[in-house]
């Protein structure tokens, strides 16, 4: 037990090392929050374009562009995308690393969200669509008022899953010397040469964040289900 207390002191208290963890947590949350927003916006646009093409055959060029985006983003690892964003795309400018991370993770997440949204739209029965059109709604109105609300409910578990993945994926942000939660633990590890405390500590914090997030998603799902009756 004394060993445990000593190790805890050495890894978190001494030299105010806990600041690496709290600072890292703040960075992780900031990056995840803005990347999620960017992912939703991008993914929503791409998803709607792709399913519009699937349903009506319009927007051919935009659809082709979206396809290229999906292929590239889903076909390469996020770490490589992050490094490319930092060292190649923003190679000649001195840019805030948090911004780089938000862009890299946001663009990455957008590709996955797009496919989730598209699957949600396609999962809504075509009869709903026809009904909307026959009462005089335009394509856009039908989308917004009839299809998307139902689609959203269908894809909520998949979307929540994507955000959990995104939160954990930000742990590679250390590659561009951004001090996120994982890097904070790594810095402590490089000072104390102790693997257990920093790694388990960091793991517990990620776990707690995901558990809290999952709880809120569950509440939201329950509310949405209530509205069915």
């Amino acid at each position, binding site marked *: 037990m004394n060993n445990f207390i000593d190790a805890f002191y050495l890894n978190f208290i001494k030299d105010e090392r806990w600041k690496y963890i709290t600072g890292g947590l703040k960075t992780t949350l900031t990056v995840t929050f803005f990347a999620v927003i960017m992912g939703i916006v991008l993914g929503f646009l791409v998803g709607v374009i792709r399913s519009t093409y699937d349903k009506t055959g319009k927007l051919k060029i935009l659809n082709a562009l979206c396809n290229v985006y999906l292929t590239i983003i889903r076909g390469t690892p996020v770490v490589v995308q992050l490094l490319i964003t930092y060292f190649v795309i923003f190679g000649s400018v001195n840019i805030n690393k948090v911004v780089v991370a938000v862009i890299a993770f946001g663009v990455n997440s957008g590709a996955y969200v797009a496919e989730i949204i598209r699957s949600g739209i396609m999962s809504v029965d075509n009869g709903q669509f026809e009904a909307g059109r026959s009462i005089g709604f335009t394509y856009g109105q039908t989308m917004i008022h009839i299809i998307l609300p139902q689609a959203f409910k269908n894809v909520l*578990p998949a979307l929540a899953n994507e955000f959990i993945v995104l939160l954990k994926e930000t742990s590679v942000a250390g590659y561009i*010397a951004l001090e996120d939660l994982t890097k904070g633990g790594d810095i402590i590890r490089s000072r104390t*040469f102790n*693997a257990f405390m920093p790694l388990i500590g960091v*793991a517990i914090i990620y776990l707690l964040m995901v558990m809290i997030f999952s709880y809120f998603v569950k509440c939201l799902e329950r509310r949405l289900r209530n509205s069915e009756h």
Partner: protein
Amino acid sequence: MKKIIAVAAMAAMVVSMTACGSKAADTGAEATAEAVAATEAATQTAETTEAATENVAANGTLIMATNAEFPPYEYREGDQIVGIDAEIAQAIADELGMELQIEDMQFDSIIAAVQTGKADIGVAGMTVTEDRLQAVSFSDSYTQAAQVIIVKGDSAVATPDDLKGKTVGVQLGTTGDIYAEDIEDVTIDRYNKGFEAVQALLQDKVDAVIIDREPANVFIEENEGLKVLDEEFTVEDYAICMAKDNTDLLDKVNTALASLKESGKLDEIKAKYITAE
């Protein structure tokens, strides 16, 4: 009707997904438990490491942990790990009549590997520091090295004092990283690799890079527009690290080092890789 079926199918999918999810979580928990057990076991067996290492010695293999991204001390050439440290370790192994096996890993994992007995010695251009001495023991120093400052040719930074309030790039866990924290108002960017810090310097993402002299010389040779400041940031001793309780191996390594120094072999190896000066 169709909608109900769709909803049911969706529900079934979600349930099956959750099922998979929880299975994965179980495995994860098991793995963690195993890891914890392993760590405990490692702590318990720490006392018996000496005996274990002796067994290794009896088998005639000396396992060296290093991070082969630190020229000219250790780097990859083809599929070989070469450099000053690799050759010194080879010479020591020859002295001891053992076969050398090199394990390439992250720099910040080397001490842990030596502590847990995964490697016998850590030779990675490692500086002796107070913190590290608490975790491992060090051999006699085999070379002196300096942390130097790399800047762009037109930089306003001319001495270590000019680093106040600047952004400095370092490699995580190196002495440059640790000592850079003492600079006033400094922002430290900790990269995983030394060359990434230099790349960031080239792209003006950091104002200066603090790194060991030898790799610094290689970096400025290969990148135009960079220079090393004349005044060193710190001067330090490189040594070989070993598990604390492994005094037997420590004696052997020190004896081997002494005889290498005497025979001039040590200087020969250094001269082979360091042409400047």
